[in-house]
């Protein structure tokens, strides 16, 4: 089916909780699979996304790799969606934002209780941390937002079916939660 809607998903500075919640649409996944095919996503093995219709982003931006992935999604998805509290406002990872990064790294790798072989990791394979965690709308343009920690399975279902059926997506009161 060449005309299936291509959906890509990823988790940046998130916990994959939003992805787990997505999977909670349960048997409706089969219905979805009839009209949707997954491109880059933890549920496929595709490493890079190309020419997608919808990109679902979980998590905020905490390091350089997050920036690269987010840009790849923006450049390859017609519609980019911020999914969950962390993508929308940085969420729990952003609670480090009032602590200087130097202190965070010192605590984690040098001075913290139980740290062995204290050393700041340094390897070109490792992404570097930004001094603050940012919501994704501060890095690229975002088209839709699905709040919640995580958004419930019904939120994903309502949003995707709206889009697929050509309606402007909207969430009724019961589906809008920030917790």
């Amino acid at each position: 089916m060449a005309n299936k809607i291509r959906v890509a998903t990823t988790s940046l500075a998130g916990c994959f909780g939003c992805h787990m919640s997505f999977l909670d649409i349960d048997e409706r996944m089969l219905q979805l699979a009839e009209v949707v095919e997954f491109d880059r996503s933890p549920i496929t093995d595709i490493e890079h996304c190309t020419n997608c219709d919808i990109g679902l982003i979980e998590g905020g931006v905490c390091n350089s790799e997050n920036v690269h992935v987010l840009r790849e999604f923006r450049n390859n998805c017609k519609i980019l969606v911020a999914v969950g509290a962390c993508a929308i406002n940085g969420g729990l990872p952003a609670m480090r934002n009032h602590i200087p990064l130097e202190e965070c790294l010192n605590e984690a790798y040098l001075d913290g209780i139980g740290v062995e072989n204290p050393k700041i990791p340094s390897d070109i394979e490792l992404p570097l941390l930004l001094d603050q965690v940012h919501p994704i709308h501060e890095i690229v343009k975002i088209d839709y937002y699905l709040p919640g920690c995580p958004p419930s399975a019904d939120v994903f279902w309502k949003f995707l079916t709206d889009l697929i059926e050509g309606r402007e997506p909207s969430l009724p009161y019961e589906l809008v939660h920030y917790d």
Partner: protein
Amino acid sequence: MSKTITIDGKVIPFEEGQTIMDAAMAAGVYIPHLCHQPEFTPHGSCKLCTVKVNGRNCSACTFPAADGQDVLNHTEELIEDRKKITQMLFVEGNHFCPSCEKTGNCQLQAVAYHLNMLDNHFPLFYPDREVDASHDEVMVDHNRCIFCTLCVRASHEKDGKDVFAISGRGIHKHLIVNAESGLLKDTDVAATDQAAHICPTGAILIKRTGYQVPIGQRIYDHQQIDQVSLATEHPKHGE
């Protein structure tokens, strides 16, 4: 003949001395608000209750009703702008609902739900603010304060104390407490004070009570703030 105003075309009677908010609530018309509670002196600072009175923006909670006023409340423009004002309140503080025990009972959140606010729209400030957990029974999380001054007014007007005040200027505004140490434990606040219960957000909390009602079963999880507000803040509708 009694005097009336119209709100969105609906004729509403009022008594001399009533504000537009008073008249609206008595008539069962909800106007979004956060810094207003009918039992305290109106403050007029959050600006969520902005309505158009004869074409001019006014705060419904402080503006006196006058015969023949044509008030617009539920218009697309006002709703959209109130949403942006709510987003301003979210970005200036640190409002991480998933980690807040007030979630589901929080009026800031409830107004945002009511206005169908799905994102923050503006860049976030991530201000550096403290948590004061020094007191045995009451705590202050400054990250969530929206400067509505309800605690200031409650402490002064109802509790006969002056535990809280707003200090600073502009974006550096902050809540302070009445103790040399600056800590809540050294004030005369008590868990029975109205001031300790009035906070519309999770900035002032009574300790060890946060999870008595599970998330998902809280006030605004299924009920919109317009209904809750009319039922609880205006006695006639609570019957």
